[in-house]
């Protein structure tokens, strides 16, 4: 774009003119049909030393199918129908990094679908594309799609697909390849069993071989993705199939989507759980990934209040589906030793079982994951010896559980429970206030303390309908202390697989879901996190996705500094060396400049805490006007 005149002079053909002639060439080809035909019709010219490639050669080299150009009126291409199928599923966006294996669908999305529903979201890395889907689905409650180039794109996407799976979030992933590869380029982009590359961490994959099968697979895949336990699905599409002519589009039918109702807990098991909980002296509710809807969020409050039991949402990993200022939010206070622990959509309860048994207590798990497990890397090594295991969706089971709890609670028991709840509420309130006061330490220090960073941010957004779209990561406790997480959409959960590199693209994905809803999306991401997919900043800028991205810039992988230090301590050597391999200081990285380079408004690096409030205010002005903005905060490690 911003080529210097010198650059142009160096070449024989100025770049702009090259594009003009290339476009003219393409138009000529489109008008005459395949070059072979044109060549045969014209007299043989004197052969130049180097022949220009034929269209067929060029397409083969680029990995294309070599199909003919131009559909007659009334006819269509198979990929047009494929786009119609995707539209029928109400998929709003398709995140892509382009590749010739899906050129047919790509072109159909533009020229047949008019680039709406799905609208193409241009991604600079497939991991970002896959992870945007992950963040998007949790914020919107429905899947979007991403499309990958055979092998190479899918392998890049693998990490994002894995975390989506580990977090039990639905996404529609599509990968294309050539079932009949014709060139040195598209052979490595094709595979005998493409789905095998990621089969261990998708809920289902399929390679439909006909158009009708594609339609059925897409609709079926959507249902599988959305049935608890939710998860990503993968469709493998042959590029030859995409390019087939459809003589009579009306002969093709898109099956109707019939969604499966979520599984509810067995009546007797739910009754038993309610009895254990109502009889318990110190019950504790622990949450994993519970509420897909705001109704689920409301039901969760009802259950906690019916039982007057504390609700521990955990730190990392869960979705924290309970209001952070509710008197029952917490783990009951320092002396609360639970005698019954109820886990709702908490896939790993091994620690809870240990804890409960230590007090002679019992455990109950309600989780859809007991219905479906992957074999290889899904919760490897996790078996919890629960006293009552209910294989059902937690959110769907809440109404019957609440009803049973109410039925079993006599007026006298109710009075006892209320008394207990009031005590828990007082303990929580005292702890909450003390935790807020802790924020004053190092208040004026540079680099900026984490509580100062979060408090300055809160001040700027407290009157907005904000949504924290990044994970809990390393600033989570301070966010919980200062901000009032009082709605389902205030927090969008975590990576699922504890993989760094989720927060930045997932924030952009969730912000895409929140675009136009009046919600103000905020992501607080580690500097280490942002460095995995920085290109997603351009995606946010290009697609005008409103998002405030705050970089918790502690100049490195601080979690790892501490870990290496511990090992060195255990081994009694090199305790002064643990920063090696873990810090980014020589040279330092400027995330503000990085954002600027990608065309995003940015502030920083900010080292003086007094500069932070005004910087947030300026950045938020842009975000409220519909753009993304980044604030680079040089901060204390923790």
């Amino acid at each position, binding site marked *: 774009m911003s080529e210097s005149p010198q650059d142009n002079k160096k070449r024989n053909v100025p770049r702009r003119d090259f594009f003009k002639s290339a476009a003219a060439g393409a138009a000529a080809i489109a008008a005459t049909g395949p070059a072979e035909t044109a060549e045969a019709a014209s007299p043989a010219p004197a052969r130049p030393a180097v022949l220009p490639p034929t269209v067929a050669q060029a397409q083969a080299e680029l990995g294309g199918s070599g199909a003919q150009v131009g559909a007659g009126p009334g006819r269509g291409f198979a990929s047009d129908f494929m786009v119609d199928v995707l539209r029928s599923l109400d998929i709003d966006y398709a995140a892509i990094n382009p590749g010739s294996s899906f050129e047919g669908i790509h072109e159909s999305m533009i020229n047949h679908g008019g680039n709406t529903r799905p609208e193409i979201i241009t991604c600079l890395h497939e991991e970002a594309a896959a992870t945007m889907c992950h963040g998007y689905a949790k914020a919107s409650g429905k899947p979007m799609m991403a499309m990958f180039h055979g092998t190479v794109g899918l392998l890049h996407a693998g990490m994002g697909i894995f975390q989506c799976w580990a977090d039990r979030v639905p996404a529609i992933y599509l990968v294309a390849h050539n079932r009949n590869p014709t060139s040195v380029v598209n052979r490595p982009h094709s595979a005998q069993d493409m789905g095998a590359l990621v089969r261990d961490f998708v809920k289902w994959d399929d390679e439909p071989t006909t158009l009708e099968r594609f339609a059925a697979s897409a609709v079926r895949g959507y249902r599988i993705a959305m049935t608890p336990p939710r998860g990503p699905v993968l469709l493998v599409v042959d590029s030859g199939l995409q390019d087939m002519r459809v003589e009579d589009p009306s002969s093709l039918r898109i099956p109707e989507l019939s969604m499966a109702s979520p599984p509810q807990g067995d009546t007797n098991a739910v009754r038993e759980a309610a009895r254990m909980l109502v009889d318990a002296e110190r019950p504790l509710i622990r949450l994993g990934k519970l509420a897909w809807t705001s109704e689920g969020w409301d039901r969760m409050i009802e259950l906690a209040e019916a039982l007057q039991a504390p609700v521990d949402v955990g730190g990392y990993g869960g979705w924290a589906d309970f209001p952070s200022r509710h008197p029952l939010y917490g783990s009951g206070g320092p002396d609360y030793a639970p005698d019954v622990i109820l886990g709702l959509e908490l896939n790993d309860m091994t620690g809870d079982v240990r804890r409960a048994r230590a007090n002679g207590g019992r455990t109950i798990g309600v989780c859809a994951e007991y219905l479906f497990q992957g074999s290889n890397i899904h919760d490897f090594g996790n078996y919890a010896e629960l006293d009552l295991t209910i294989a059902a969706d937690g959110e769907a089971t809440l109404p019957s559980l609440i009803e049973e709890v109410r039925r079993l609670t006599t007026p006298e028991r109710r009075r006892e429970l209320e008394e207990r709840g009031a005590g828990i509420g007082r303990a929580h309130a005292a702890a909450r206030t003390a935790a807020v006061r802790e924020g004053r330490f190092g208040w004026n*220090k540079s680099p900026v303390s984490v509580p100062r960073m979060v408090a300055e941010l809160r001040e700027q957004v407290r009157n907005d309908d904000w949504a924290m779209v990044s994970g809990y990561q390393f600033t989570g406790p301070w966010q919980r202390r200062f901000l009032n997480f009082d709605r389902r959409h205030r927090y969008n959960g975590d990576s699922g697989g504890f993989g760094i590199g989720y927060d930045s693209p997932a924030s952009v994905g969730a912000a895409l879901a929140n675009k136009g809803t009046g919600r103000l999306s905020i992501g607080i991401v580690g500097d280490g996190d942002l460095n995995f997919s920085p290109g997603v900043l351009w995606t946010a800028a290009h697609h005008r996705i409103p998002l405030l991205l705050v970089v918790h810039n502690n100049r490195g992988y601080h979690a790892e500094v501490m870990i290496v230090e511990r090992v060195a301590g255990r081994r009694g050597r090199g305790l*002064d*060396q643990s920063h090696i391999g873990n810090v980014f200081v020589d040279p330092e990285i400027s995330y503000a400049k990085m954002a600027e380079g990608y065309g995003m408004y940015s502030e920083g690096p900010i080292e003086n805490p007094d500069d932070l409030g005004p910087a947030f205010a300026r950045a938020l002005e842009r975000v409220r006007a519909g753009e993304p903005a980044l604030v680079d905060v040089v901060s204390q490690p923790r």
Partner: protein
Amino acid sequence: MRTALARIRGVLKRTAIPAALTGALVLSGGGPAGAIPQDAAGNVTGNAERGRPMFESYKCYACHGYEGETGSPRLVPMTLTQEAFIAYVRSPRTLGMPNYSSVPVQTLADIYAYIESITPDAPPAESIPLLNSVLEELEED
């Protein structure tokens, strides 16, 4: 403020404890008890100035903040006696805390002296409008 940050940059770039400081360590290391400075009561006496770069090199900042005030647990104001502090870091009881039993007692006393020398930057929460407003919100709840 600038100097604190400049110093931290130096810390992160440093690949090992500066030779001059290591020399001091070797002297005070596993040598006879008589080589270690002691006060009248027989306690090792620490030197805050020597302690600061040690605090940084031994990555105390990674969990406790560059000046011991942020992160967790907070070290400032220090609540342990020197003896308890040294005993703890040489045999920590939590998984998160590295074991510093290989670090000489003198160095740990220096680190202790440094932590003790830090004046807390902690205005009362009520005097900080941003925190006070959170506290007010909590009271309303």
